[in-house]
């Protein structure tokens, strides 16, 4: 039909993007895939090894440890930064010059380059001349190059300082878009502050929080610069993230094949996890879900949804 022809034309408009993405993502990715499947000894000497490198990466205890560390770090970051971000956003003034001032102050950490953040914190946490380091040392022994706990905690605090503002800004924007009438209705209904948060704000913030969660997960799971600058992955390998490990393998040991396999697995994990995450959180917003549906349809869909939900949860665990 004619309508379809017209729709097909629209695809041509996407071509430039496809072209750019091909250069920036697809071709490099193909190159990486290429490396991951063969052992390259020299320019003319290469050996097809199949999935050997993948197996090696998957069974490498270093990689497994780094993976576990990254998962722990990301979960801790999400658990701290999302509630803290919401808390801060709710404290921020709603209008007037104070609102603008608060926005600027909150946004400051976001505009500082990663390595500058790392360097700043590196100095800040030194226990001889760093303001933070000296201060903390007054109360408890603090040495980030010796204590695993200190190093880990420093990374967490630094990332929280750096990235909580992002969550705060997103949530703040979300809160501002809730019509006043909802708060008024809740007041009329005698809802407690907690109930207002639980039944008015949280549902309305759902989309925004989902974006915040996704962004914070992806960023924290790929964290490199800050721990690299502050702790260099140490002491030992206690703060060695997957990214740092990958760099060590690729650049330090120049083990291109393994690094390629590693990169692909890393990339796929983030992709799949983000996709699952998004899918689960938007299950009830699928096309047609908001339309008036006959009761049977609604019921049958609910039946389908529940097992899917629990299955996914199992998968995620």
């Amino acid at each position: 039909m004619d309508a379809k022809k017209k729709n097909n034309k629209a695809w041509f408009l996407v071509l430039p993007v496809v072209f750019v993405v091909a250069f920036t993502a697809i071709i490099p990715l193909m190159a990486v895939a290429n490396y991951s499947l063969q052992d390259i000894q020299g320019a003319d000497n290469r050996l097809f090894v199949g999935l050997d490198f993948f197996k090696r990466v998957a069974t490498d205890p270093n990689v497994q440890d780094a993976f576990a560390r990254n998962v722990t770090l990301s979960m801790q970051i999400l658990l701290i930064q999302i509630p803290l971000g919401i808390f801060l956003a709710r404290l921020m003034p709603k209008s007037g010059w104070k609102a603008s001032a608060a926005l600027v102050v909150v946004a400051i950490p976001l505009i500082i380059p990663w390595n500058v953040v790392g360097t700043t914190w590196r100095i800040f946490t030194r226990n001889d001349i760093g303001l933070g380091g000296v201060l903390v040392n007054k109360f408890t022994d603090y040495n980030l190059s010796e204590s695993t706990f200190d190093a880990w905690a420093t990374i967490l605090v630094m990332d929280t300082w750096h990235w909580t503002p992002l969550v705060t800004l997103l949530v703040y924007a979300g809160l501002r878009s809730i019509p006043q009438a909802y708060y008024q209705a809740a007041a009329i209904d005698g809802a407690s502050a907690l109930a207002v948060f639980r039944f008015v704000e949280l549902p309305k913030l759902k989309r925004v929080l989902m974006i915040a969660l996704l962004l914070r997960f992806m960023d924290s799971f790929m964290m490199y610069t800050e721990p690299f600058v502050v702790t260099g992955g140490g002491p030992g390998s206690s703060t060695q993230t997957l990214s740092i490990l990958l760099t060590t393998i690729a650049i330090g040991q120049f083990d291109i094949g393994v690094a390629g396999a590693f990169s692909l697995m890393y990339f796929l994990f983030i992709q799949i996890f983000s996709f699952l995450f998004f899918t689960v959180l938007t299950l009830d917003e699928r096309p047609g879900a908001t339309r008036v549906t006959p009761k049977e349809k609604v019921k049958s869909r609910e039946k389908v949804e529940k097992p899917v939900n629990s299955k996914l949860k199992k998968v995620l665990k």
Partner: protein
Amino acid sequence: MAEIRLEGLAHSYDGGKTFALNPISMTFEDGKAYALLGPSGCGKTTLLNIISGLLKPSHGKVFIDGKDVTNVITDDRNIAQVFQFPVLYDTMTVRKNLEFPLKNRKLGKEAIAARVEEIAGLLGLEDDLDRKPAKLRSDLQQIVSLGRGLVREDVSAILFDEPLTVIDQNFKWTLRNRLKRLHLATGVTVVYVTHDQTEALTFADEVLVMNKGSLVQDGTAESLFLEPQHEFVGYFIGSPGMNFLDVEAKSSILTHNGMEIGKAAKEGLNGSYRFGVRPEFLIPSAKSGLEFKVDRIEDRGVFKLVHLSKDDFKFIAKTEESYEAQVGGKANFSFDSERAFVYDTNQKAVSTVSPSSEGGN
């Protein structure tokens, strides 16, 4: 159930430069239904939000049952309010939405269930109780909203802020009817904000007509219709609104461009005035009254609107459906002496007007 008293109540959003609500003092009697009627921006919603405590007035006081509640928060005023557009808790089912105000007030489980069933029955929501509001049509969503306002039995007053705006015309009649009966049955004080005169007049025992932040006239539907004490009431209530004509008064004889219109009942009127008569009270007469040219006749099924013109002004008359006249021809219309008024330059009614004895009689 409660009496609400306003004392010198006024509100300014900008610290006293302009007033959204001019000083008003009045009492909403216990158990009566009131309507605040006026165009948008007349201050009616401001007044409503002050009564419910969502807005703190910049001037004056609010009393509920004699107790000063000006500084008391909404939750402690025990007032229910329904908003213009559906305001629902998305994550809760319709049933949970209806239960919410009761749960917050720690009612027993059975009492809650019974009350929810009752309200759902009244509003025709029985079949939708276990669905999420987002899956309902927008007018049904508003009905759920309405239900949340009505579900509490112990309220001092229920406030409605244009609750039927998004409801379908035919269903409006049914709903208004049910609300009115509910009011009669429970005897709770009701304040109903609307810009729709039919809604205000049919629902309320007493209507407060507001314009530009001021109360213009309050009274029963009948008195507002029959005896508009302010030009705005004449214009705003009634469809079509009142016919107006600038007149000169000389010893209470009213003339327009030298043509005699009528005589004011009050003695000694001199100067510039406005004459007003509702279309319903312009009465076809064989010979008496003023002679008009018939411009157009609109047949509305159960009545007719006759568009009349004379010299430099136009009137509309609302007649029985049986009225017949030649379009383009002449027709005589007189007016009811109890139902025609003369307004001063402050738009206030000063007297009734009787048709002049001349003019062809």
